[in-house]
């Protein structure tokens, strides 16, 4: 009987021991294995992408001519708005460069925008990280910001590149608790940190903490990147502050506020991203 029991417990004990071993040394092995395994899976993922694209194109055929014409018209309208914005921004940029020259300030960093496609998603950590089909050969470096475009054409922060190979890059998203970034409130110098503190991310909300105490209501304010991280451009929208700890600074000695930011990025629809690479970081 004892021997019979051993028969069942032995595999379980070995499994637990191996699990502990892999948990402890897994990180070391995985970084190297990622390159090899990535190369193995690359053709299959590309194949899936090649099959996906014509299918998506074919789905357009299900729309009527009137619907298609309306879509084209809407897009043309948006393009005209972008062209106007671009012209205005170009003027401002020239003015800014001229002022910097006169004030003998160093030129502001320039950013290269690389468009990438999401080729691999983890079904169990869907919002936590993903892989894009751009790597070191395209100029992508670890630490680069990954952006999505809001419908009104403004960039939104999606995540940060954590590792790269020649042809792909792993992206850690803003919903990943490992990604800690500074943020500031739009138009103010009030700074906090996302994914810090004791709260956990979930349901499209990013926890934040260490936001400098202010007597103003912060809920509803726009959270943006600060530019403190050298490879992330400043003033990129992260989301809107949904809730913050209700503390009255007149009656409390608390120095910081904690709360949640709601991000407008829909990770289920995320297919194409923009990777902002600082030009002097290559």
């Amino acid at each position: 009987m004892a021997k019979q029991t051993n028969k069942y417990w032995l595999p379980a004990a070995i499994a637990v021991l191996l699990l502990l071993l892999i948990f402890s040394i897994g990180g070391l092995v995985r970084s190297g294995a990622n390159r090899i395994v990535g190369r193995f899976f690359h053709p299959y993922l590309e194949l899936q992408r090649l099959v996906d694209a014509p299918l998506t194109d074919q789905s357009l055929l299900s729309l009527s001519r009137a619907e298609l014409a309306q879509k084209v018209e809407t897009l043309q309208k948006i393009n005209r708005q972008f062209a106007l914005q671009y012209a205005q921004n170009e003027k401002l940029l020239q003015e800014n460069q001229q002022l910097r020259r006169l004030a003998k300030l160093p030129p502001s960093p320039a950013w290269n925008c690389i468009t990438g496609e999401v080729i691999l998603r983890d079904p169990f950590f869907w919002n936590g990280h993903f892989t894009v089909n751009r790597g070191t050969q395209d100029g992508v470096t670890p630490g680069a910001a990954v952006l999505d475009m809001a419908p009104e054409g403004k960039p939104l922060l999606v995540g940060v590149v954590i590792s790269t190979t020649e042809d792909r890059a792993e992206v850690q998203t803003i919903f990943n608790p490992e990604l800690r970034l500074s943020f500031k409130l739009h138009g103010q110098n009030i700074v906090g940190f996302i994914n810090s503190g004791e709260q956990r991310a979930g349901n499209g909300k990013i926890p934040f903490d260490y936001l400098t105490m202010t007597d103003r209501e912060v809920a509803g304010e726009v959270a943006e990147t600060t530019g403190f991280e050298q490879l992330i451009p400043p003033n990129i929208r992260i989301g809107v502050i949904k809730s913050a700890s209700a503390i009255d600074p007149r009656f409390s000695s608390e120095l910081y506020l904690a709360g949640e930011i709601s991000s407008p990025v829909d990770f289920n629809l995320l297919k194409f991203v923009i990777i902002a690479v600082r030009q002097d970081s290559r």
Partner: protein
Amino acid sequence: MTAGIFELFTALIVLIGEVLLGNCGIPLPLSMLVVLYFSATLSYRHGLFLAIFCGMILDSVYARELPFATGYLLLTAAASRPAQPERLQGEALLSVVISGAVSGGLFFIYALAVKIAVPGLTMSFWDIVGFLPLAVFGGALLCPIFFWFMDCIAKRIDVPIFYAAPAVTAVERPRPRRLPRRKASWGAVK
């Protein structure tokens, strides 16, 4: 040798399928079925090897911070142990169904433990709890189908180890059967 090649080839095909399905947002852990099949059909050592092999590949390709797949696959290898004796005698259905159900249950208990211990798992607490009966039922249903399918393939490509006689399963070297021990009685002549 044949068994090893068949095992690795099947594992790689299933892994590609799992990654492609996962990319579409379908979290179907097919590698669990492979681990369960080879663990029950050959030996738990094969199961453990496959669990580590498939787990490391999945965790590497997704660049996960923690070896999530390796964990549940190792548990699956351990859970397949009760199915093995019956499988070896060819009376597999019930034990395979039980093993599938146990593996499905273990998977979600593991996911629950990971959810509590490590943040970042997309599924919410109530998602995991809600999926528990589905996982148990799915495991119990998918497992026999997968076993039958694999046995059919083995038969088709003529790999005798898997379909023929589970009694010769450890194949190359069939083990002698032990006779049950007799209770020693006083005054027995040796």
